[in-house]
């Protein structure tokens, strides 16, 4: 029987620049049976809130949802590490029949007593949405009893895709914002939104901002703290990274507190520099602008000679990108260009129409642009484009490796800092160390070449 790597219903979500016209279809539910690389609403909420290190994160549901997200993201904390534990109400058959509210109440009671968290997030899962537990009422009651914020996160897995989960997470955080003391905050102050401190990245970014004279009020959410988020409305500007994971919170803060926001990326030399410039320009202070220029100059001078070495080796190699949010893809396209590599495929799980228009603008002719892809499509594209290196997350890694293609992990589990100027060098080094490895001499793809 003949098989199709690309299902008919999926054709509109694939775009070849220079060949196809019109716009790419996106932001829709995953097709049944297509083996999407996406997760669910719960996943969206969980990844956004997870790095808040002094909060209790209780998953209200059966054990799977909690166990598959236990210490899942390499989000580092400089202090408490409560976020690295996996808490669940572990719902059983009887709870499903009679309701899980009592169990939730008891679980919160014992866990809050045990860990003394600054706040608790209670995640709803598929099943809770079905059995009709009143999460809000239980949270409200426990908040009063324990005298800490207990926040429901309405993240039932089936109620949309990851983006809906981002919204639910932002809504929960929104309850915290505005409840802390905002005295003694500089007028040159920001919140960092949408960096999750993988491998310690937010420490580096904070350092850059502090060096140029900008105060960081709250990390949202990498190395995050409940008390910082409570006073984050005292900042003058929200600096938002990532494709919309925390944009909803910035929008909410703009409406409620009149705080403007900027979208940035800390990945790659160009975007990192641009992020610092746009923040200092926003404050319109000559001293800050000058500081930013000096910092960028200093960092780029350090970086350039080493990058050159990698560029020489990697010149003309072909890269494919498949990431969660499209914003990261923009930066990656530029970063690959900086090290001489050519991007031949780029896709994301949750891109918006605007994201894909931008991707089309910044990529070369013939590039494949894809929304919500799956293993068979991705592997077909890797082969068709004779890709040398694939960048993605854990689920993409075995696709690349199985086919003898080098790989760079740009997702939750990486242990190397890839943001900032230093991160660019790490990125180049990681790409280099995979692409140049002698192991590819032995894979069928190379040994069976005619």
């Amino acid at each position, binding site marked *: 029987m003949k*098989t*199709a790597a690309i*299902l008919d219903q999926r054709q509109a979500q694939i775009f070849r620049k220079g060949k196809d016209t019109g716009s790419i279809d996106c932001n829709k*539910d*995953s*097709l*049944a*049976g*297509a*083996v*999407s*690389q*996406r*997760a*669910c*609403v719960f*996943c969206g909420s969980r990844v956004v809130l997870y790095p808040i290190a002094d909060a209790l994160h209780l998953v209200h*549901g*059966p*054990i*799977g*949802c*909690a166990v*598959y*997200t*236990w210490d899942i993201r390499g989000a580092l904390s400089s202090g408490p590490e409560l976020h690295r*534990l*996996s808490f*669940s*109400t*572990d719902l*059983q058959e009887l*709870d499903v029949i009679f309701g899980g509210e009592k*169990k939730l109440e*008891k*679980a919160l009671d*014992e*866990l809050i007593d045990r860990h003394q968290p600054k706040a608790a997030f209670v995640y709803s899962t*598929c*099943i809770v*949405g*079905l*059995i009709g537990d009143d999460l809000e009422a239980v949270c409200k009651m426990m908040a009063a009893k324990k005298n800490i914020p207990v926040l429901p996160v309405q993240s039932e*897995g*089936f*109620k*949309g895709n990851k983006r809906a989960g981002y919204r639910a997470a932002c809504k929960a955080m929104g309850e915290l914002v505005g409840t802390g003391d905002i005295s003694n905050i500089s007028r040159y102050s920001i919140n960092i939104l949408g960096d999750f401190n993988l491998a310690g990245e937010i420490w580096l970014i904070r350092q850059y901002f502090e060096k140029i004279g900008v105060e960081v009020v709250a990390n949202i959410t990498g190395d995050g703290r409940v008390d910082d988020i409570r006073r984050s409305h005292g900042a003058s500007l929200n600096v938002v990274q990532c494709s919309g994971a925390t944009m909803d919170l910035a929008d909410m803060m703009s409406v409620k507190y009149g705080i403007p926001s900027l979208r940035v990326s800390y990945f790659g030399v160009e975007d990192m520099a641009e992020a610092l410039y746009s923040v200092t320009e926003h404050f319109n202070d000559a001293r800050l602008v000058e500081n930013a220029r000096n910092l960028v100059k200093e960092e780029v001078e350090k970086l350039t000679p080493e990058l050159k070495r990698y560029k020489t080796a990697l010149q003309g190699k072909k890269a494919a990108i498949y990431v969660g949010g499209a914003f990261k893809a923009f930066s990656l396209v530029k970063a690959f260009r900086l090290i001489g590599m050519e991007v031949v495929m780029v896709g994301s799980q949750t891109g918006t129409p605007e994201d894909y228009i931008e991707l089309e603008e910044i990529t070369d002719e013939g590039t494949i642009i894809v929304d919500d892809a*799956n*293993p*068979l499509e991705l592997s*077909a594209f890797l*082969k068709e484009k004779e890709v040398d290196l694939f960048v993605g997350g*854990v*689920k993409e*890694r075995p*696709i690349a*490796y199985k*086919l003898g293609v080098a790989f760079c992990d740009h997702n939750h*589990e990486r242990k190397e800092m890839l943001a900032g100027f230093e991160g660019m060098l790490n990125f180049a080094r990681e790409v280099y160390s995979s692409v140049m490895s002698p192991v590819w001499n032995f894979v069928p793809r190379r040994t*069976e070449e005619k």
Partner: protein
Amino acid sequence: MSANYTSTTNACKLCRPLGASLAFRGIEGCVPFLHGSQGCATYMRRYIISHFNEPIDIASSALGEKQAVYGGAANLKLGLVNVTSKYAPQLIGVATTCLTETIGDDVAHILKEYREEFDTEDSPTIIEVSTPSYAGTHMEGFHGAVKAAVEQLSEVAPANDSVNLLSGFISAADIRYLREVFEEMGTDCTLLPDYSDTLDGPALDDYPLIPKGGTPISAIRSMSGARATIELGSTLPRDTAGTFLQQRHKTPLLQTDLPIGIRLTDTFFQTVKTVTGLDLPARHTAARGRLVDAMVDGHKYIFGKRAVIYGEEDIVVGLASFLAEIGIQPVLCASGGKSGAFKQAVTSVVAGMTEEAPIVMENVDFYDIEEMVQSLEVDLLVGHSKGYSFARQHNIPLIRVGFPIHDRVGGQRLLHLGYQGAQQLFDTIANSVIAHKQDTSPVGYSYM
């Protein structure tokens, strides 16, 4: 979750559909399919990939809000059509999730409708298993999927000389080992499930639609005619694939523990002999001899060490038996499972071999284990990689076994079974103890 607490912290179990997905991956030409929300399939893929470092495509009916209200039948059917046209599978193994169990989708009925609507000559066979995440662990899912495959695929087959081997959840290396045992004896063996190739395959030029390998469907169809079924596990559910074959087809059934360590491997080979009439191949006699010799050589370094063993009940039972044989005291045997048979099984395999009776705890999480360990002196942890944070905190060596192993390469290649498996375990354990002593010694001797 123990009796003392309501909440679970750092669970020592996984959810039921994960076990079913793994088992279905071990059948030739099969695509595992989860009827539920998209996230379940993706999370489980990620969890499995991080252990095996292999692709595993698990399809999903990707239900949304509308389907949760009106039922998931249409999405399930669409998903099956799409999987069929993309993967051309011989078999699709549908497992339910808590979502579809709770909304009450009648999967058997939906599949009946589906067959009426879509069946053509080259349509794949579809089997289904109920795996609500809120009842049982991944082990119930695993055994349930194996049972479903046998129930729904096996036919009345003519008597044949082969042996059915239902091996339980073991590593890819373990499966290869068992296959070799029967190959050496020249006995046909239907080993179910067999993911030794599908989840530990070679580098390829083309991404496989479905990886090669797995138990052939034709072999499953004729399992009823086998001379006997050997089913491995100490805490098996009451109704299994083995009991089904026995009751429905009168296929003789022999249930025995996982062959971990000397005595349980002896028992296993005895069982094989009962079924086939064949003696142990010479290679294994030699391996047993070397193992005993190695145990003698190394016994002093490990005697009296105190170990905590955790993980799935069956593997813990096997490891407790082996540790007891080499003079290590299993002080605590713990599992997130709750078969009800765990305590009895551990007690019986260590009887007469240890100074103290181990504490045996079922239905526990890592919080319970850690709390319990405070009052016990412990030298070693033996279990999967999720015990690492605890091992690190208390500076206790962790011997990685079973599933998952997310922080090392090669988890799928760990051999636990047979005399060879015991040999590897012994060397690893003895060397960990020796290394720990060497590393923490002020002298740092270069001899043991």
